[in-house]
């Protein structure tokens, strides 16, 4: 087994644009779940409308890229309002039910044959981000970051993704350390207490849902910019649960939790994947026990096991504070 190549692949995964996209979506989820206590199980839906907002605007309607991004953001705002207006007055369970259903409905709708003229159906849409790559200021060539070698194109989309992550992190930092953030956190603790102190809890929950959804939609955009392809099946409901896993891993309710969580999550997932594949290739794992095509499923089973162990032994995540976890009185 070639451990150097496993490490290089894993590092590539950890700092790649996919990790940045997931970090962005998790920052949004952190606003919902970590700070406001909203149980959003459909964050992938916000990524989807963000991604398709750009893809459809550019490749079907021929609009400029920036207009497409604006459409993606507005779609996320509309989705947040559609989900939040009817459910946020009710108990928190209802948002959970509505979001988990909405995420899957959106995916099935975008891949359906009657939507194909606009969304491309199961095949999705391709080559809509040319404008984005035309903006690339990095001269062509090979760029070496330690063991990782990136093309100018890869470097551009990676920098763009992590740039957005840093901006979103800064935004969340400023908001959370303000009176607005204080109200949001008080709603997480006890919304009736916030109500009794004159806070319009419903309006704050809506603001939080919209904000986190918009940040999530940027995650979707980075994801499809990277591959120049938007296909409905990359927005599977399981994505939301990866986001929860990495958020808990990094530390929910911590500003840098999603960022660290995403890097670690992708490092672990990619290294598990390549270790399994190499072990199968080298015959350490007999191919009738586990074939290379099944390795993908096994690594996600291991991710599930990891989440389980994390919840039992370190529910506060890496950046979380144990004493806060103990205080979770609800």
């Amino acid at each position, binding site marked *: 087994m070639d451990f150097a190549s496993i490490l290089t692949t894993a590092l590539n995964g950890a700092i790649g644009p996919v990790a940045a996209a997931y970090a962005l979506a998790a920052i949004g989820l952190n606003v919902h779940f970590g700070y406001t206590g909203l149980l959003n199980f459909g964050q992938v839906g916000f990524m989807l409308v963000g991604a398709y907002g750009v893809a459809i605007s550019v490749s079907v309607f021929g609009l400029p890229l920036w207009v497409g991004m604006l459409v993606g953001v507005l779609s996320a705002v509309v989705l947040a309002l559609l989900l939040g207006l009817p459910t946020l007055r009710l108990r928190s369970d209802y948002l959970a039910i509505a979001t988990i259903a909405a995420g899957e409905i959106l995916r099935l709708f975008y891949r359906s044959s009657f939507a194909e003229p606009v969304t491309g159906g199961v095949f999705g849409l391709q080559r809509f981000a040319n404008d984005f790559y035309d903006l690339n200021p990095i001269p062509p060539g090979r760029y070496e970051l330690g063991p990782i070698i990136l093309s100018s194109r890869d470097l551009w989309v990676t920098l763009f993704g992590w740039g957005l992550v840093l901006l979103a992190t800064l935004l969340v930092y400023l908001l959370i350390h303000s009176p607005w953030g204080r109200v949001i956190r008080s709603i997480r603790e006890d919304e009736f207490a916030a109500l009794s102190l004159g806070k319009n809890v419903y309006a704050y929950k809506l603001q939080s849902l919209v904000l986190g959804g918009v940040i999530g939609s940027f995650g979707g955009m980075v994801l499809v910019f990277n591959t120049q392809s938007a296909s409905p099946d990359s927005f599977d409901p399981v994505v939301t649960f990866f986001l929860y896993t990495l958020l808990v891993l990094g530390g929910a309710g911590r500003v840098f939790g999603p960022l660290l969580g995403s890097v670690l999550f992708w490092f672990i997932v990619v290294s598990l994947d390549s270790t399994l594949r190499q072990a199968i290739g080298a015959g350490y794992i007999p191919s009738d026990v586990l074939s290379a095509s099944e390795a993908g499923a096994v690594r996600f089973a291991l991710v599930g096991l990891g989440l389980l162990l994390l919840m039992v032994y370190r529910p506060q995540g890496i950046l979380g504070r144990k004493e806060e976890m103990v205080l*979770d009185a609800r």
Partner: protein
Amino acid sequence: MPAEVAMKSVLAGVPPEPGAPKPDPILVTDGVTRSFGGLQAVNVDHLELQRGAITALIGPNGAGKTTFFNVLTGFDRADGGKWTFEGHQMAGMPAYQVARRGMVRTFQLTKALARLTVLENLLLGATAQRGEGMFAALVRPLWGAQEKAIQERADELLERFKLDHLRDKFAGTLSGGQRKLLELARALMVRPTMLMLDEPMAGVNPALAQSLLHHITDLRDEGLTVCFVEHDMDMVMGTSDWVVCLAEGEIIAEGLPQSCGTNPAVVDAYLGRAHGTPPAEELPS
């Protein structure tokens, strides 16, 4: 003349009967009803609460005290009826607006915001904070000065309630009694004109209960109106200026605290009436 004596003499002239008019009512309710399925939890015909007085709401378990409280503070919806607070119609008003109007409540099961610090709990109470808008929150100069002023007021209250040594601790680490004090201090940050306390003495040790009592009477002496639901008769007798007794959702008696222990309707409501005996009012006294 101390405020307590003054208030007692003002209320001494009020006839001790359900629905009695008060000289200067801050809260006036009419025909407030609330039922859960077939159960009529609240059916309060007319009630007036005197401004600047401590009014105790008593009654056996299930009398509808807390439901009545919830309805008045906007935490529950009335099926019917109207009520005014400082002359404003309040029926149907959402809870957060009721609080902004100056009627602030606390809860029977204390709601300390566990993962906020004691100071943050208090800061949250201040109303009309510019930094609570999502966009203004990003620009600290817009709200920094206001935040500092609020913090000064919070520190004064922490000192008053002897919580200053816990200022930066998480509220979740406080004892049950400290949480009661915290909740009271936090409610005062809203600058209420009327405090609605739901069982302020529940689960509080005697020493702390004394200090809570003093705080409540001090607040009354400073001009605040207080209404509380309570089971602890010592507290009811010791602090309140006026007592309203509810049973099965209706007001069965009102009066000065010393008169209510001997009121036959109150005794009946608490202890029950032997089967077949006539209602209290028909018995020779």
